[in-house]
């Protein structure tokens, strides 16, 4: 098994973990976003709650959720570790860094990731943590749909959610294509489509997410 440890402690192996967990988290975003978007049916939360209930109780999904938490933790832990090592790789910094030839967000994944982490802490403590705690202790779910109205009535919360979504947009804009590059999936024939899907994804998903608190706050949904 030494080879496996060697693999995942090598610089490339750590990047591999980042890419794999990143793509896994992206797939989670798709589901999360799809279900949450059910609120736009504006049917008093019937569809939303139906699917929310399914996600919260289905044994397969619940098992996968463990993987999801692990995925988050690995992604965060490796990200911080890489950030630290990359920092150490240049002990003396340059004094001039003018118009660099790379995008700012590709250079700021650590920063964007940290913002997302803060957001995540806030977000999970709004919904997921209380809900699961309640499930464990009381055996039944909380009314998430109603909680949403309560949480998003505070303009500051809405503001921070929007900031979180903007961070997510930049994080994905680099992360999506970057994951493919790390996995070695770089080919002239497919690079165009990867980058197109990546950009589209990074715009659509965070946009939909951001729309939710705004829509609730502005009472487009009731």
């Amino acid at each position: 098994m030494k080879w496996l440890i060697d693999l995942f402690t090598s610089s490339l192996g750590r990047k591999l973990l980042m890419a794999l967990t990143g793509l896994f988290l992206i797939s989670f975003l798709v589901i999360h976003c799809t279900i949450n978007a059910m609120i736009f049916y504006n049917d008093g939360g019937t569809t939303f709650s139906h699917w929310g209930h399914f996600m919260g109780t289905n044994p397969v999904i619940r098992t996968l959720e463990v993987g999801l938490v692990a995925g988050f933790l690995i992604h965060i832990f490796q990200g911080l570790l890489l950030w630290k090592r990359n920092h150490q790789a240049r002990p003396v910094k340059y004094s001039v860094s003018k118009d660099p030839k790379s995008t700012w967000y590709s250079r700021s994944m650590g920063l964007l990731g940290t913002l997302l982490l803060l957001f995540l802490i806030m977000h999970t403590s709004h919904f997921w943590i209380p809900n699961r705690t309640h499930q464990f202790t009381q055996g039944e779910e909380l009314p998430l749909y109603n909680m949403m109205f309560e949480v998003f009535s505070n303009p500051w919360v809405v503001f921070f959610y929007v900031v979180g979504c903007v961070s997510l947009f930049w994080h994905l804009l680099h992360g999506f294509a970057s994951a493919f590059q790390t996995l070695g999936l770089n080919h002239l024939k497919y690079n165009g489509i990867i980058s197109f899907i990546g950009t589209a994804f990074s715009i659509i998903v965070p946009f939909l997410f951001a729309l939710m608190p705004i829509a609730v706050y502005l009472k487009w949904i009731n």
Partner: protein
Amino acid sequence: MKITLKVWRQKNRTTKGEFKTYQHEHVSPDMSFLEMMDVLNTELIKKGEEPIHFDHDCREGICGMCSMYINGHPHGPLQTTTCQLHMRTFKDGETITVEPWRAQAFPVIKDLVVDRSAFDRIQQAGGYVSVNTGGVPDANEIPISKNIADEAFDSAACIGCGACVAACKNSSAMLFVSAKVSQFALLPQGHAERKERAEKMVAQMDAEGFGNCSNTKACEAECPKAISVSNIARLNREYFSAMVSSYKVTVGGGE
């Protein structure tokens, strides 16, 4: 032309360095950057000041020896080597800041001279085809498609200057390493040792203290030989497939 130069001066590896400012009054737009430095050095010697040390040799953009970080860019604002950069690129009266390559793995030896022997050690770890002199097949017994040969050449064009490391915010050496691994991964001659090569070179790269690639592509944008990041993707493929399938795993680099 007249310019103001801010140059990093550092006596040796252990002493602390600092920027010194020089007014350079005798600059012609036709000078190469290094010639401009030569003229400045002559003036310094005449004044009894030690000349600024910098690496250079071919002055043709091919040996990879020259290495100055000029105004925030390795080899200056154009995508070329320092020796091929000419003063007509700069404006009269401009202030130009010159720093050495900065990376843990490239310690400063003196002024603008850094130690890039880490690159050699990475090559020694596996950047070769194990054939002895003599006893090889006729050159035309190994047909190689022109496209593959051209692509291998594109990777092989790397001059080992280290600008990719200097440009990378993480001081990652991935572009350099991937270029070499790619050359041999593309050519049939390299196939026999393909797996060990990727494993050993990456292990050595890690042991040298370079940072990790985060795909910002600054390396590609600054590389004087336009080595493509598609090489890095190839290195990733080579490495992962080697690690999960090689017979005997011998990783762990060393000095």
